[in-house]
C-alpha cells in the first residue's frame, strides 16, 4: 500500500499542538494556575456556570408616549431611539461607578436592553439599582387639607375630584405597612435635571444624600423656599415621595439634603444614580435570572461528571466492540474534545451549561462517524476484499452518509444559534464545533492513522 503523504501528518500535528496549547488553560476547569500563566486566555463561562445576573430591561414606551402627550408632543421613532441610546449610556455609566468588572450591556430589539453581570458581589442588587429611573423632583406640598378629598386610606373620595393644579402622590411607610398621601402643587416644582452633584453625607447620626443644583435650579429652589416658609417641600423620586421636610428658611445656595431613613448602602446607591442622571425612559424588568456561584459550581461539576462518564463509556465500548480500530476511534474522540475546547477559546465563545450538554452529545455523535466507517469496512471485508481495499472503500463510501447525517444536525444548530438566548447559543456553538471537529477527526485523522499503519506493517488480520 502506498505511503501516506507527509503533509497530512504535519497538518494533524499542527492542529493538535495549536488546540492543546489554547485549550490547556481552560482545563483550568480542573484548575492549574501554573499552566494558566503560560497560556493566557481561558474559555468564557456563561452566567449559568460562573454565577451572575442576566436582566432584560424593557422601556415603558406607553409611559414615554404619555409624557410626550402631556407636553403636546408626538413620540417619534427617533425620540425612542434617542431615549434608548441615552438610557444605554447612563446604565453603562452607573455600572461603571459600581465598579463591576466586565459587564455586558446590549441593545436588544427596539426597546430592550440586556445587562449581564458576572462575578459582582451582589449582582442582583446592582441590576436592581441601576435600572431605577432616578427622576428627582422637588414639589411644594399644598396647604389644602387632604381630608377634604381623601379617605382614611389615602384614596380619593368617590364623589370628589382634585382641583386642576393639584396632584396626589404617596410616601411609602414600610414600618407600618401603609402609605402617606400628599397633595402637591403641580407648578411649584424644581426639576431634577438641574441636579449637578449628589453625595452621601450624615446629619444627626443619620445617613442622608446631599445634592447640589445648577444656577437655574438654585434660583427656582430659592424662590419656592423664600415664598413658602413654614410650608413643606416634598422630595420625589420617580413619582414617590421620599420625604417632605418643613421649610424653615430660604435656601439660596441650591444645596440641600434628602432624608429618607437611609442605610449607608441605600444612601450610596441613591447618590450614585442621581449623579449619573435620570433615565429618559422608565425601564421595567422584563426578565431576570440570577444564578448563585455555588449552583454554577455544582452545574460545572455535574456537567464534567457527565462528560467524563459518557466519555469513559464510549471509549470502553469502542475498544471492546472494534478492538484496535476502536482505539483509533477513541484517539479521534479525544482529539475532538481538545478541538472543541481549543476552538471555544480561540473564538472567545462562551461555554454554558447547555453547552456542556452539547459537548456530551458530541461525544456520542462523533463516534457515530467512526461506527459508520467501521461497519462499512467490516462489510467490505466480508465480501472478501483485501484489507487495504476494504479500508479505502469503508472510508470513501461512508463519507457521503456521514456528510448527509451531519449536515442536517448542523442546519438545526445554525437555526438554534440565531434564535437562542445566551445558554442555548452555547449549546448550538458546542454542537456545531463538535460536529465539524468530528468530521475532521473521524474522516481525516483516523483515516490517516489507518493508512499509516497499513503502509508500514504487513497487516494480515484487521482488528475491527
Amino acid at each position: 500500500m502506498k505511503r501516506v503523504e507527509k503533509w497530512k501528518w504535519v497538518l494533524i500535528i499542527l492542529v493538535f499542538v495549536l488546540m492543546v496549547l489554547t485549550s490547556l488553560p481552560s482545563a483550568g476547569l480542573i484548575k492549574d494556575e501554573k499552566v494558566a500563566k503560560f497560556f493566557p486566555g481561558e474559555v468564557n463561562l456563561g452566567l449559568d456556570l460562573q454565577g451572575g445576573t442576566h436582566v432584560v430591561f424593557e422601556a415603558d414606551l406607553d409611559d414615554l408616549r404619555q409624557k410626550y402627550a402631556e407636553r403636546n408632543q408626538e413620540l417619534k421613532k427617533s425620540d425612542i431611539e434617542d431615549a434608548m441610546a441615552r438610557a444605554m449610556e447612563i446604565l453603562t455609566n452607573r455600572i461603571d461607578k459600581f465598579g463591576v468588572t466586565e459587564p455586558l450591556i446590549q441593545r436588544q430589539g427596539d426597546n430592550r436592553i440586556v445587562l449581564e453581570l458576572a462575578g459582582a458581589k451582589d449582582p442582583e442588587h446592582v441590576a436592581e439599582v441601576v435600572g431605577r429611573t432616578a427622576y428627582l423632583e422637588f414639589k411644594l406640598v399644598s396647604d389644602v387639607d387632604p381630608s377634604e378629598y381623601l379617605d382614611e386610606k389615602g384614596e380619593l373620595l368617590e364623589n370628589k375630584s382634585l382641583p386642576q393644579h393639584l396632584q396626589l402622590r404617596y410616601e411609602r411607610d414600610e414600618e407600618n405597612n401603609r402609605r402617606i398621601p400628599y397633595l402637591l402643587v403641580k407648578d411649584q416644582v424644581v426639576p431634577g435635571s438641574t441636579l449637578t452633584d449628589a453625595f452621601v453625607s450624615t446629619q444627626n447620626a443619620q445617613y442622608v444624600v446631599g445634592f447640589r443644583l445648577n444656577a437655574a435650579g438654585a434660583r427656582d429652589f430659592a424662590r419656592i423656599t423664600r415664598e413658602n416658609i413654614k410650608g413643606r417641600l416634598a422630595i420625589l423620586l420617580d413619582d414617590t415621595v421620599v420625604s417632605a421636610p418643613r421649610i424653615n428658611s430660604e435656601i439660596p445656595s441650591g444645596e440641600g439634603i434628602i432624608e429618607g431613613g437611609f442605610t449607608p448602602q441605600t444612601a450610596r446607591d441613591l447618590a450614585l444614580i442621581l449623579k449619573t442622571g435620570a433615565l429618559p425612559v422608565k425601564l421595567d424588568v422584563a426578565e431576570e435570572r440570577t444564578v448563585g456561584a455555588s449552583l454554577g459550581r455544582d452545574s460545572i461539576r455535574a456537567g464534567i461528571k457527565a462528560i467524563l462518564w459518557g466519555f469513559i463509556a464510549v471509549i470502553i465500548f469502542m475498544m471492546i466492540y472494534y478492538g484496535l480500530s476502536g482505539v483509533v476511534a477513541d484517539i479521534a474522540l479525544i482529539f475532538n474534545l481538545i478541538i472543541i475546547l481549543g476552538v471555544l477559546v480561540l473564538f472567545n465563545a462562551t461555554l454554558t451549561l447547555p453547552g456542556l450538554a452539547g459537548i456530551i452529545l458530541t461525544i456520542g455523535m462523533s463516534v457515530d462517524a467512526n461506527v459508520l466507517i467501521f461497519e462499512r469496512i467490516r462489510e467490505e471485508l466480508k465480501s472478501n476484499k483485501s484489507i487495504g481495499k476494504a479500508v479505502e472503500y469503508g472510508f470513501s463510501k461512508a463519507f457521503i452518509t456521514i456528510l448527509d447525517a451531519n449536515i442536517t444536525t448542523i442546519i438545526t444548530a445554525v437555526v438554534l444559534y440565531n434564535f437562542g438566548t445566551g445558554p442555548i447559543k452555547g449549546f448550538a456553538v458546542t454542537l456545531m464545533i463538535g460536529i465539524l471537529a468530528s468530521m475532521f477527526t473521524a474522516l481525516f485523522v483516523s483515516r490517516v492513522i489507518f493508512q499509516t499503519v497499513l503502509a508500514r506493517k504487513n497487516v494480515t488480520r484487521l482488528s475491527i
Partner: protein
Amino acid sequence: MEFIKNTKINFVSKSVRRKAFFFSGVLIAVGLISFIIGGGFNLGIDFAGGSIIQYRFEERPDISEIRDVLKEAGLEKSIIQTFGDPNEIMIKLSEGSDVDLLKRIISKEYGEQADLRREETVGPSIGRDLKRQAFWAVLWSLIGILIYISWRFEFKYALGALAALFHDVLITLGAFALFKFEFNTPVLAAILTIIGYSLNDTIVVFDRIRENIRIERPRSDAHYEKVVNGSINDSLSRTIITSLTTLFVVSILYIFGGEVLRNFSFALLIGVLIGTYSSVFVASPILIEAHLRVGSKK
C-alpha cells in the same frame, strides 16, 4: 465483537408495516390525548412567565412547613417541590407574584440555613416573544431540512424522512404532555436537535437503500420491498450501534447532568430512542408506500 450478524428480519412486509403504523399511531394518539386532557404542556416560566426561586437548605426542609409559611403571606398558589436533592427546594410563583416578599419571608424564617441558589423572573412580554421565536425556529429548521433532503434524495425518500421526523417530534412532545415534564427553552433546543438528529439514522438506512437499488434495479414492487428490507438488514448494525453510543451519553447526561438539564436530556433520550425506531419502522415503510403509490418515476 459483533452483536448483529447477517440478520434477515422482515421489517417492511405489509403486515409488519401495518403493525408499525398502528404502534406509532397509538404513541402519537396517547401524546395528543394527554395534551388535550392535561390542558397542554407544563410550560416553564420561559414561556408562561412567572418566577422560580431555588434554595439549598442545610438540613432537609419540611415542605409542608414551607407551604404553611408561604400561605400566611398569601403566596399559597406557589408550587413547592424538591429539585434533584431533598435539600434543594424550588418554588415556582405565578406571573406577577411578589418575589421579594417570598425572599424576605424565607430569609426571616430560615436565615442562613437557606442559601439562595437561583432566581428567575420572566415577564409576559418575554414569554410572548419566545413563543413567536420558537415557532420560527422550528419552522426554519424544518424548511432547511426539507430543502436539504429534497436536494439530496428523490421525493419519495424525502416523504419517508419527513414522516419519521414529524413522528419523532410529535412523540417527544407527547411524552412531555403525558409526564407533565416542564417545557422550557432548553427543551425546545432539544426538540430542534432531535429534528436534526432524527434524520441521522434515517439517512444511514436511505443511503444503503439507494445504493442497493442502483445495483439491483428492482423490477417489481415485491422486489423493491425486498431490496428495501435487505438494505435495512445490511445497515441494521450501523443503525443500532450509532444510536447506542449516542444513547449512552444521553442517558449519562440524564443521570449525572444535574437537575437543571433533566428535562432537556429527557427530551433527547426520547428523541434518540424514537428516532432509531422510526428510521426502520416509519421512514422505510413510508418510502415503500410512497413507491407503491407514486411509482418509481424520476
